């Protein structure tokens, strides 16, 4: 894998373990300005990788550089945190706060000491995610989609250079997801955004680059068209289910859509991002393993 020197994130041979489980198993990653998507099934290691990028966890082995700094060094780590916005998978807020107070609390933790300036900054990020009009509502009174947007808004405090978003759209309905993607897309202009998802639509809509991860390793890294191209000539339709395919599913009309090595004379069809993903990840794409 070639890593360009101006990349915001450069990781090589990253290994991370939880007891005997190797969550990251020699993973390489690079990401620069723009939106990079980590695509992979549950348990692939996406959250572990994102925690390492957010300096909340450190890999056991491997070389990692974030914003041209070494997260293993304390002073560098502080500098990274000052330029970072992190949205964990299960982001919540202390009970009893209003939306404004919740973001203000995180702004204090992000070292915004001057009160007036900090409040202006809170209002700015709330406006960016469209929540400025509910700023005085208690967080518990907000819908799930609004709470997710609130959690996203705190990542934008202080205009960070790097945004790390773990499954940002999970649990959102299609309309909420659409709004969310819009905000992330805007945020990615001139900034590095790394987000994880197991939804191919998010990647297709949002990402300049995509890294496919499974079992702690990177199976692919490149642009979305390059990923789709991997499935060229390897997607076909047949009336019956062909057991030799890597993955197959029944279409609405009654025939079956297959991904894999097509038999001779098969009726090929244009590949989608999902097809390419299934090809790479294979049977484990459908597994519901508890994520790490």
């Amino acid at each position, binding site marked *: 894998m070639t890593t360009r020197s101006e990349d915001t994130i450069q990781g090589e041979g990253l290994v991370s373990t939880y007891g005997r489980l190797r969550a990251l198993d020699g993973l390489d990653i690079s990401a620069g300005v723009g939106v990079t998507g980590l695509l992979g099934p549950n348990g692939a290691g996406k959250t572990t990788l994102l925690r390492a990028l957010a300096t909340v966890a450190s890999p056991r082995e491997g070389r990692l550089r974030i914003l041209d700094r070494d997260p293993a060094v304390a002073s560098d780590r502080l500098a990274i945190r000052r330029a970072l916005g992190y949205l964990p998978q299960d982001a919540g807020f202390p009970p009893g706060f209003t939306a404004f107070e919740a973001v203000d609390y995180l702004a204090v933790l992000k070292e915004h000491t001057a009160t007036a300036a900090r409040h202006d900054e809170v209002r700015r990020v709330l406006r960016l995610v469209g929540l*400025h*009009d*509910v*700023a*005085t*509502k208690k967080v518990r009174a907000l819908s799930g989609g609004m709470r997710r947007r609130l959690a996203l808004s705190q990542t934008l405090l202080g205009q960070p250079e790097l945004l790390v978003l773990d499954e940002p759209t999970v649990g959102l309905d299609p309309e909420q997801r659409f709004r969310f993607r819009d905000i992330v897309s805007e945020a990615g202009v001139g900034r590095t955004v790394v987000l994880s998802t197991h939804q191919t639509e998010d990647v297709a809509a949002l990402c300049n680059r995509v890294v496919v991860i499974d079992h702690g390793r990177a199976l692919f890294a490149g642009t979305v068209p390059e990923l789709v191209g991997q499935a060229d000539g390897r997607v076909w339709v047949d009336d019956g289910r062909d057991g030799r395919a890597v993955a197959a599913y029944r279409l609405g009309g009654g025939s079956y859509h297959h991904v894999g090595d097509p038999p001779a004379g098969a009726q090929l069809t244009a590949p989608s991002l999902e097809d390419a993903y299934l090809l790479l990840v294979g049977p484990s794409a459908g597994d519901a393993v508890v994520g790490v």
Partner: protein
Amino acid sequence: MEDVSDRELLAQVAAGSSDALETLYRRHVVWLSVRLSRRCADRSIVDEVIQDTFVAVWRSAKGFTGKGEPAAWLWGIAIRRLVDAFRRRPPAMALVREVDLSVIESAEDRVLLGVTYGDLGGALDRLAPELRSVVQATVLDGLTTREAGHLLGLRPGTVKTRMMRARRALREELA
């Protein structure tokens, strides 16, 4: 400008929308400021009262029952906040301005006056200033005797006496 009515805005404010409060603010701040400035010459006090007014609107928007004009409700809050401000500071410092420009009022103004108050307008004009200010505070601004006293720096007893004299004078005029 009036696509959303004041009533609807107040309902939205009651539901917690600060945008609705801002829209309401931009619509009403000018006339409220001017009207307050004619009862208090100190700009900083007027600014403070305007701020207090809209914070009070935020807190009590639910209390607007819908009867009567929203603008009247807003003025009721504003004038009472002015009274509170005067109560906090010695009235001597907050001069109530009495501008006497009756000599240069145009013919149009006199017609206007007749239109709004009928015979009363001219009679009001001819009242002694200290009686007129009491009439303005109680009748036109809707304050109680005690509140009018705070606003004008008078004891409630004095306010009552002057109201009686004003009524007598107006009755004599209009008879």
